[in-house]
């Protein structure tokens, strides 16, 4: 809402407050002033001129040489506007003038002819092109004949004004009108209101003789008022009205349309003017549209109506979409002589639905949607009638045609001063409270410890005691509220064990060298199931903004890979990222997808880069595996952790494993498939994804200390020759199972495949640690245990000792 402070001052005394200070007061007490706009924009030396003579430039077709009376002298100005003509009163920027944007006007010569200034369009004075009346949109603006040459043009155009731009919250639709804002400002400044006048002489003829009215959809349209005005003369509105409309962000058209818009801005009540004669039938019937029914609206669009769209008809066909936009067939035009003015109350929900269906929003629909003041429907119709009489020479027919089943009783709110003070933590006196209610013009009474308040119908946001708490508090001032802390039973706060573990997981991964990434949950349908740990239906948006973000992800890996590509394309040597986030597995009984918290990580590029000491290493499978092993150790699951070769689409078939805890799958790890790497223009990239929720929710044995032994351990190394395909993990498992109680640790320390080996064979070396916490082991005991291991290896894995 754009509020001209000059216009506002017609309804409430703003005490000569600087508009900035006024804006600040309004902001602090309830309605945010987003901007304070000075309409002069620093303009100077812009005056009224009279074009005494206008001839074509001999050297340039499109230029005119004008002799312009600017009060103190007559001066020559070259003007290129197509509409400049002798006898016009125009806006002249004199040499030395400054226009918006800091443009300075100087004397100049155009094709050999002197030009002492510039004849201006409204755009050149900083008015948006969309607000300039169509007649002047492509040229200079022509002032009324009454303008006096030499006088400043700014007051004439209402540009000596400051606009407050209000950022209205949905509850304060009452401030979508100048009067509404005036009530608010009056309450803030403790000033009284001046209301607009609506006086006119009624003709002898009755409106009801001209027009009949029927409402067939009373729920959508509980109140409809139409007035008829005869003998109107369609012309330009007076300048004051035009510039007020432009200040409010509305383009002037002609006097009748402008009056309806003016009253809309003044009262917040949308009006519509029909060309009475073009209605043809002398009747108005308001009903729901027939499905598929058509209407051409004022913007020349043909619109197909739905059966829940409310329309105004002439009894045969629609002439307006109720509360949204009029029809072209009944539009007021230059030849209109009789108009029917509609002032109605259309239900907010109905207008919102229609506006949405037709994808059409207007100043009118915005106000109906939020609910207009039931008590202004008639007032606004009368104000419009009086302006039509005054500014269009109209003859207002007696009375109105009315259907009115609208409940206009104010909402009663009963609240005790104690309740207000308890809610606020304050001690505001009853006198202060009633004084605030008086300033707000809320009808109220204090009796037996309660305040009985009739909320004015313009304030539809006031319904319950808490609303009064807010009104009192904002007018009293939020700065006056003391600062306390909740008094309650004191309980320790904290994280759940899951949340605490999740934080430790993050810290661990970061310590291991990974940065935390956050990527989008929405992805393309194609990507949504890629790398998913389990198969589940996808969850798709009804109306995605793009295919790229149409479906909820089932794996974190695809977006992390995007991040790797992004960073690699920007010369990053190493990309090491992890993410903790939800994946969405549709559908469950509740209808919501199952949200599972996952952990994923990606690594690419160099892992160790300390080249001057000869340490350099690219990422590989075992870097990432080591990080996961470390993580499981941190979480107490090392003993249950296993990796098994697996095949996953999009991953390298020979370098992929499923990760299991106690045999149960919890994730996958692997290298991105070389062909995928190629598509993404990546070097070797490794990925891992875990069902974090499953891991963190898994039971862990209590941490219990084992005494540190005084006895030494004995280590035996073995080098085994086995078939190349034999997995090291299998050998390790055989060793662990066969080693007996004395075998405390097995550690793979060497792997050799190559020339020195027989083809198809490899050598794997383990270091085995034997140890008894109770005593020093004898050689014999170790040999016994060790022989069992060797025997098992030979029998179960065909392993031979390497000679």
């Amino acid at each position, binding site marked *: 809402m754009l509020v001209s402070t000059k216009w506002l001052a017609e309804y409430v005394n703003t005490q000569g407050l600087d508009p900035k200070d006024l804006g600040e007061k309004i902001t602090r007490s309830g309605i945010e002033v987003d901007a304070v706009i000075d309409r002069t924009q620093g303009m100077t030396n812009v005056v009224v001129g009279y074009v005494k003579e206008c001839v074509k430039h001999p050297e340039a077709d499109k230029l005119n040489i004008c002799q312009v009376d600017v009060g103190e002298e007559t001066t020559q100005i070259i003007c290129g506007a197509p509409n400049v003509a002798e006898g016009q009163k125009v806006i002249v920027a004199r040499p030395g003038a400054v226009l918006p944007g800091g443009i300075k006007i100087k004397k100049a010569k155009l094709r050999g002819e002197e030009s002492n200034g510039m004849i201006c369009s409204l755009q050149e004075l900083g008015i948006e092109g969309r607000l300039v009346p169509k007649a002047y949109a492509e040229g200079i603006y022509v002032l009324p004949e009454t303008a006096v040459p030499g006088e400043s043009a700014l007051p004439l155009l209402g540009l000596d004004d400051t606009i407050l731009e209000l950022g209205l919250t949905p509850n304060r639709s009452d401030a979508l009108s100048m009067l509404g804002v005036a009530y608010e400002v009056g309450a803030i400044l403790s000033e009284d209101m001046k209301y607009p006048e609506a006086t006119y002489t009624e003709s002898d003829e009755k409106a009801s003789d001209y027009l009949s009215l029927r409402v067939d959809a009373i729920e959508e349209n509980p109140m409809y008022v139409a007035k008829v005005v005869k003998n109107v003369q369609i012309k330009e509105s007076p300048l004051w009205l035009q510039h007020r409309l432009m200040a409010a962000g509305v383009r002037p058209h002609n006097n009748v349309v402008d009056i309806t818009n003016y009253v809309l801005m003044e009262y917040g009540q949308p009006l519509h003017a029909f060309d009475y004669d073009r209605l043809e039938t002398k009747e108005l019937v308001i009903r729901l549209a027939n499905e598929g029914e058509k209407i051409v609206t004022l913007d020349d669009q043909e619109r197909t109506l739905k059966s829940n769209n409310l329309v105004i008809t002439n009894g045969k066909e629609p002439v307006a979409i109720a509360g949204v936009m009029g029809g072209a067939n009944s539009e007021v035009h230059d030849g209109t002589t009789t108009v029917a003015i509609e002032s109605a109350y259309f239900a907010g929900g109905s207008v919102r639905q229609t506006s949405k269906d037709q994808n059409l929003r207007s100043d009118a629909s915005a106000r109906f949607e*939020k609910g207009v003041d039931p008590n202004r429907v008639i007032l606004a119709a009368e104000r419009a009638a009086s302006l039509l009489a005054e500014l269009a020479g109209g003859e207002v027919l007696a009375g109105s045609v009315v259907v009115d089943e609208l409940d206009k009783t104010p909402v009663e709110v009963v609240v005790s001063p104690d309740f207000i003070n308890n809610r606020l933590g304050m001690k505001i006196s009853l006198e202060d409270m009633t004084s605030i209610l008086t300033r707000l013009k809320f009808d109220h009474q204090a009796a037996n410890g309660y305040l009985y308040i009739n909320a004015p119908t313009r304030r539809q946001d006031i319904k319950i005691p808490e609303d009064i708490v807010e009104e009192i508090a904002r007018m009293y001032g939020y700065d006056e509220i003391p600062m306390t*802390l909740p*008094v309650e039973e004191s309980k320790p706060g904290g994280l*759940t064990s899951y949340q605490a573990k999740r934080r430790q997981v993050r810290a661990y991964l970061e310590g291991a060298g990974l940065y935390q990434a956050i990527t989008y949950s929405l992805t393309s349908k194609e990507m949504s199931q890629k790398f998913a740990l389990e198969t589940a239906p996808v969850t*798709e948006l009804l109306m995605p903004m793009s295919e790229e973000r149409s479906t909820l992800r089932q794996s974190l890996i695809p977006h992390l890979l995007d991040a790797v590509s992004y960073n690699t394309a920007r010369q990053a040597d190493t990309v090491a990222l992890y993410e903790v986030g939800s994946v*969405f597995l549709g559908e469950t009984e509740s209808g919501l997808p199952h949200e599972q918290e996952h952990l994923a990580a990606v690594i690419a590029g160099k892992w160790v880069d300390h080249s001057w000491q000869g340490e350099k290493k690219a990422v590989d499978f075992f870097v990432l595996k080591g990080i996961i092993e470390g993580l499981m150790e941190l979480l107490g699951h090392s003993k249950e952790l296993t990796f098994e070769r697996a095949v996953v689409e999009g991953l390298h078939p020979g370098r992929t494993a499923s990760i299991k805890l106690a045999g149960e799958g919890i994730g996958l790890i692997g290298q991105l498939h070389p062909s995928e790497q190629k598509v993404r223009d990546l070097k070797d990239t490794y990925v891992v994804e875990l069902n974090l929720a499953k891991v963190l929710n898994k039971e862990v044995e209590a941490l219990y200390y084992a005494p540190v032994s005084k006895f030494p351990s004995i280590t035996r190394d073995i080098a085994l020759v086995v078939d190349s395909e034999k997995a090291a993990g299998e050998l390790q498992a055989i060793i662990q199972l066969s080693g007996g109680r004395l075998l405390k640790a097995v550690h793979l320390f060497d792997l050799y495949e190559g020339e020195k080996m027989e083809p198809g064979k490899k050598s794997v070396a383990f270091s085995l640690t034997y140890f008894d916490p109770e005593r020093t082991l004898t050689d014999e005991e170790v040999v016994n245990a060790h022989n069992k291991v060797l025997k098992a290896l030979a029998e179960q894995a065909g392993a031979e000792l390497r000679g």
Partner: protein
Amino acid sequence: MEAQLQQLKEEALQKIEASQNVKELNDVRVAYLGKKGPITDLLKGMGKLPAEERPKMGALVNVVREEVTEVLEARMTLLQEQAIQAQLEKESLDVTLPGRPVKTGNHHPLTRVVEEIEDLFISMGYEIAEGPEVEKDYYNFEALNLPKGHPARDMQDSFYISEDILLRTHTSPVQARTMEAKEGKPIKIICPGKVYRRDNDDATHSHQFTQIEGLVIGENIRMSDLKGTLSVFAKKMFGEDREIRLRPSFFPFTEPSVEMDISCFKCGGSGCNVCKKTGWIEILGAGMVHPNVLEMAGYDSKKLSGFAFGMGPERIAMLKYGVEDIRHFYTNDVRFLSQFHRTEV
């Protein structure tokens, strides 16, 4: 024999002097003082001397031996010192060479902000509550006093999955769910999480972003408690000398509703580009829980009251760290992420 002894001594001393390192000197020791050395030989050869000369000669040999030994030891100490010195010199490092890097990652800046806020409220007795990102319309809107057709739903254009299911547009449904689960008992929670709105991504909008909200419900919770709590938050988060101010606002789930500004942490209130010359920075929205919200969750709004507040970690991170474009948080550019490595206390 005496002359022979004198000559040996001279020779030995010369060789000692000539030794350049420990090994050479040891060779001299072995050569002259060892069991097979000439001095020992002399002692052995004393048997040939007349008996009365033996004691005198013996004494003389010992004196020479001691003298040589003494000089040798002194030389030895010197050479050893020199050897250590040489070794140290050889082992000297260019200490300005770079160390072996310990590469660690770090929190995403949003997590950094969220955890800082979480920890602050945990210290005031709050718990962290979480909930689903795909929500029922009921919890996202209706339970929060936003019935179907409410004008404020316009403010939150949403990603719907079906007529009744959508991506949550705020973390408030977690409040609604917590209230329902607590069945009328007091509540003190912080709810962080991802939220989604149907916006085109640009410098100030993101279709996915983060929110963190707080909710306190109890007997006689007052607006002054909200103001006091927010003041503690502002000071901890933005500096001890921060002041706060409340401005009236509107949220469907609170009444009264306010927005909180803090005095600008950059200019202290005199006006700068961070605060757009106003001296104040808008940080969060808050209010007293709307009675409809309490009643819908089964709380008696006559007996219990509460406050709620909510803010955007993106906005806080942007203000605190001067980040100019919200998309940086979701691009995961390592050059961006790695700047949030160091501690700040």
